[in-house]
């Protein structure tokens, strides 16, 4: 009987895990309101007086697709677990930032700039022991082309 693999985020600190509704972890500056992803220990607004440290926030799970591409080449080691084809999108969040991430579908018929997408955490690859997780954006509307 095969043992259930342990689910491990590919990188700690990018999204909440374990979680039924995972969210991206960002930061917001209490002085000027500037939002960052990933979270940072300092604000990135050139006009900020940096008098306070940014606070951790959870970013909105829904955004709008700004652009996308389907990657059709495999990557070299140590990143060869990204198996082509896979889809990458840039997603505009209500916080005013655009985040790049994997998309759940490589079917171009299902993708359209301006469509609503929603955050999801899923498996990127697995080895003998662990399943490694990353964040994806999933289309939440039908495309009428």
């Amino acid at each position, binding site marked *: 009987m095969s043992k259930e693999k342990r689910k491990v985020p590919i990188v700690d600190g*990018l999204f909440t895990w374990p979680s039924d509704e995972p969210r991206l972890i960002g930061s917001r500056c209490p002085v000027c309101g*500037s*939002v960052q992803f990933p979270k940072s220990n300092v604000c990135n607004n050139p006009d900020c007086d940096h008098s306070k440290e940014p606070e951790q926030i959870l970013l909105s799970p829904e955004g709008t697709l700004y*652009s996308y*591409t389907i990657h059709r080449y495999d990557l*070299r080691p140590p990143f060869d677990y990204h198996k082509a084809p896979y889809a990458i999108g840039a997603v505009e969040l209500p916080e*005013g*930032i655009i*985040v790049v991430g994997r998309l759940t579908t490589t079917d171009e018929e299902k993708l359209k700039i301006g469509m609503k997408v929603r955050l999801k955490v899923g498996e990127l690859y697995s080895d003998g022991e662990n399943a490694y997780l990353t*964040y994806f954006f999933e289309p939440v509307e039908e495309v009428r082309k």
Partner: protein
Amino acid sequence: MTESAIVSAAITEWTASGEPTPSLMDRLASVAVEALRRAKLRPRDVDAVIATTTALPFDNPSFITISAQHFAHRLASKIGSHGMKCINVCGACASTAIAFATADAMIKSGYIKTALVVGADNSPRGFYYQAPSVLDADLATGYPHKVVGITNPSYWAMWARRRAYEMGKPVEDIKELMALVKVIHSEYGARNPYARYRKVFTVEEVLKSPVVCDPLHLYMISATSSGAGAIVVADMERAKKLTDKPVKIAASAIGGPLSNEPAPRLVHFATAGGGRAVRPFTEWRRVIEEAYKQAGITAEDIDIMEVHDTNCFNTINWIDQAMGWEREETDKLIRKGEIRHNGRLPVNLSGGTASFGEAVQCQALMMIHELFLQLRGEAGERQATKKLRVGLCTAYGAYGSYGAIIVEKAW
């Protein structure tokens, strides 16, 4: 204020990357002394060597990279040094533009009179990744290749698709335009003895090449190469004694990342929050505007351009940004062939990075070298037919590295 000028320039032929011989330092030294010979100068006449560091990958993470970070010092010792000032700069693909601007600023400030600007690279093959390093938590864990599988062409592809969308056109439209850019660049690569690729492509061939990241096909993305270049820059008074055709440096602007840049930038997870600029590529536009201001000119004064085309979208985008006109005008310019040697605005008559492949830390020197030849009427079969006075070189690199150089005939 002191004026500065290019006295001489020399580059090697660009070749395949990944071969360890001849050594980078040997190549750099031979091209440096060639530039000095052409200027009738000796190393003793050079006040400063300004070199770019290299993007060479290292075989083992425990090796120190100090040798690659000190090309200026090593070159000075190798060609003979009288204690010349040695400066090493790094700015991804824009490195040599930043080195060049540094030399220009040092001359204009009166600190030095003559500088040797050099760059050499043997760039890694394939997609670029940041090196994982156990010594830096950021590199060990956080970078987007690891998490998202994103590569440089992915960003370019997303920009290209977005441009088509914003113009209300199907993505096939920009795909075909990028293929045409490749074709035109290849026509000039074929006429350039320094270019690595001399084949003239057709639009069909480009569109038949494998898709890397839609809409970018393989032949729309530059290969990586090996190459070296050297340029001698001096204050105008001295330059006029050394050559009867000094090429004045009318402007040399260095650009950096803008926190409110709205287009996702290589190689970041996200744009910055708060107060986004309205137009994408404000970073690109900003460095050019600074150069125009320094030179006291406008876009209409530009006779010829060499723009950094790591992929064919960048040629299109640089024209958009440099001209500051409706993007439709750029499309028309390219479709009518007006960027050819006999056109209204010749672009990349060197053949561009499309024909050279990219020797990352040296690419802007290749472009400045071409403008130097074009303005002096020494570009042979590639020579622009219109009367040339002012040329613009734009360089672009990851993390928001930019350079914009304006050169002008000074005779």
